[in-house]
């Protein structure tokens, strides 16, 4: 997994609530047996109109926005457990998703792919969205070590599980940790009471 420490970037606003993983990557693109290429189809049915032409009103297609931070509305990533959603966002080039609330499974999937979910207050999210829309050049700084997200003269701290933070900073994943526990797992199996 790719390491994450700090990131300073412009951001793309996605001012929609309850963005579900079916929007992030529609089911018809889940037939691949590897992790490649999902970035091409991220938000497919919002990025392209019914005729398959680029929907220029959609923020990811708006030339004035760029960057590897996506700032989205409340309850981002709800719905299906498909990790393809995280692969698609990473494949498109995002390293950080900011929202006032994340769905559980998506959050775990993001962390397992070096994609940092930053949960901020509703007030901070609103300011952030307004700022990006008014001044798209605004640089946002995300510092995982300090657990802060800052822009211009505003800053907010965010929570992250300390174990997951260590994993992100060092690029570790859970498999390494679990394999180191093999003996304990076997002992548990031998002694389990249920």
């Amino acid at each position, binding site marked *: 997994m790719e390491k994450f420490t700090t990131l300073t970037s412009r951001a793309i606003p996605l001012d929609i609530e*309850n963005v579900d993983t079916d929007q992030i990557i529609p089911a018809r693109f889940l037939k691949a047996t*590897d992790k490649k290429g999902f970035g091409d189809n991220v938000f497919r049915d919002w990025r392209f109109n*019914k005729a398959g032409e680029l929907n220029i009103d959609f923020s990811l297609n708006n030339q004035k926005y760029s960057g590897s931070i996506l700032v989205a509305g409340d309850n981002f990533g709800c719905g*299906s457990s498909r990790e393809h959603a995280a692969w698609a966002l990473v494949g498109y080039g995002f390293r950080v998703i900011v929202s006032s609330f994340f769905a*559980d499974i998506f959050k775990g999937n993001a962390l397992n792919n070096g994609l940092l979910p930053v949960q901020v207050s509703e007030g901070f999210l609103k300011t952030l969205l307004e700022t990006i829309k008014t001044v798209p050049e605004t640089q946002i700084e995300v510092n995982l070590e300090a657990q802060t997200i800052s822009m211009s003269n505003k800053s907010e701290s965010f929570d992250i599980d300390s174990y997951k933070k260590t994993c992100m900073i060092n690029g570790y994943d859970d498999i390494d940790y*679990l394999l180191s526990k093999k003996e304990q*797992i076997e002992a548990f199996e031998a002694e389990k009471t249920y």
Partner: protein
Amino acid sequence: MGKTLFDKVWDAHVVDSVQNGPQVLYIDKHLIHEVTSPQAFNELEDRGIHVFRPNQIVATADHNTPTLNQDLPIKDELSRKQLEQLSENCAKNNITLYELGHKYNGIVHVMVPELGITQPGMTMVCGDSHTSTHGAFGTIAFGIGTSQVAQVFASQCLLLSKPKSLRVTVNGKLKNGVLPKDVILYIISKLGTNSGTGYFCEYAGDVFENMSMEGRMTVCNMSIEMGARGGMIAPDETTFNYVKGREFAPKGDEFDKKVAYWKTLPTDEGAAFNQEYFFDAEDIEPMVTYGTNPGMGIKISESIPMDDNASFKKSLEYMNFEAGESLINKPINYVFIGSCTNSRIEDFRVAAGFIKGKQKANNVTAWLVPGSKQVEAQIIKEGLKTIFEDAGFQLRQPGCSACLAMNDDKIPQGEYCVSTSNRNFEGRQGQGSRTILASPLVAAATAVAGKIVDVTKDIETLELA
């Protein structure tokens, strides 16, 4: 202080705890299917790791399978390849696979309980968010991502922080014609799609105690639609009777011993929950959704509410509905009865009970998709297939089908579908499709009328299973 059902099952599965971090949770059963497993198998192979406990893994093909002509080779190359990959991976790693055509094949959350694999007090995971279904048996069951599928392959464990506890109690007697699907759609419409995030939810009260296992599975299935990783219902005689005698259920003394243990699992008197909600059964009516998330539901007799929120408006625009309007008499051209939410024998009994002696409306294309080969066989055995065919319906073969439209069962652009599935997200049933979630009864009534009808008007006279 007493313990909750969730605490008891969770605590019995903790192998170890990371200091100030997550816990190592042991997983009893790991269910896999063709869509979310291939990358996990690749990961293990790339890192030279063996599958640790292949005999605790059960595989089926369901998400991507056709529901017609299953005996013929699959036309879509990518779908075929995905299924071939599953077969190869299972063979290579000694994992039992109920592949397409097998007499036990079906939707993972239908065929696994049917075989008695799901048992109270277990921990179960699958790379599918509707794994919450199995909580109906008093198991901790939840959906995981593909990285976690690889972790369970490697260690039969997951690293997890213990979720908070939530209890939803519904007491009283349900009105005639109000089905388990209406109960869960009602709960989600009241609590919202993220009320359960960070929680595991226990459903308690008369309504769930009096529900069949099929009904309990429908309820627990949709826990994820209010954000809860899982839902649970305390195991009782209904649960034990369902499990007893099934293919992989414990037999003889072993079964009795298990039952003695399962009886210790229900939440203790006085156990505390982080959050509690209470509802009255009498307040629930047949439900329909009008928007693009499962929380946007109303009683079928109600009108779409008014709301100035931009996301709400975007949702109504997508559905081509107006705030304040009723859905009654909306013409509907597609009806889907199926999915891991409502494709069990009871659901088809309800549909057949309503349809018997009536005819499908000419404008309606209806897809009736059983959840498993066993459900399909039961439909035929009970004569329901004949009822459906006499009424102009066609029974298809098992699979996830139009719930997520990965196969050819896609609702066309702009069309409405009254569906017994679990998600009404934009494009969920095909690009540009518009989904209205409902119970099998409302779906059957829609298919007969060719439009949404107020089934509550007939409730007094309905004869249901």
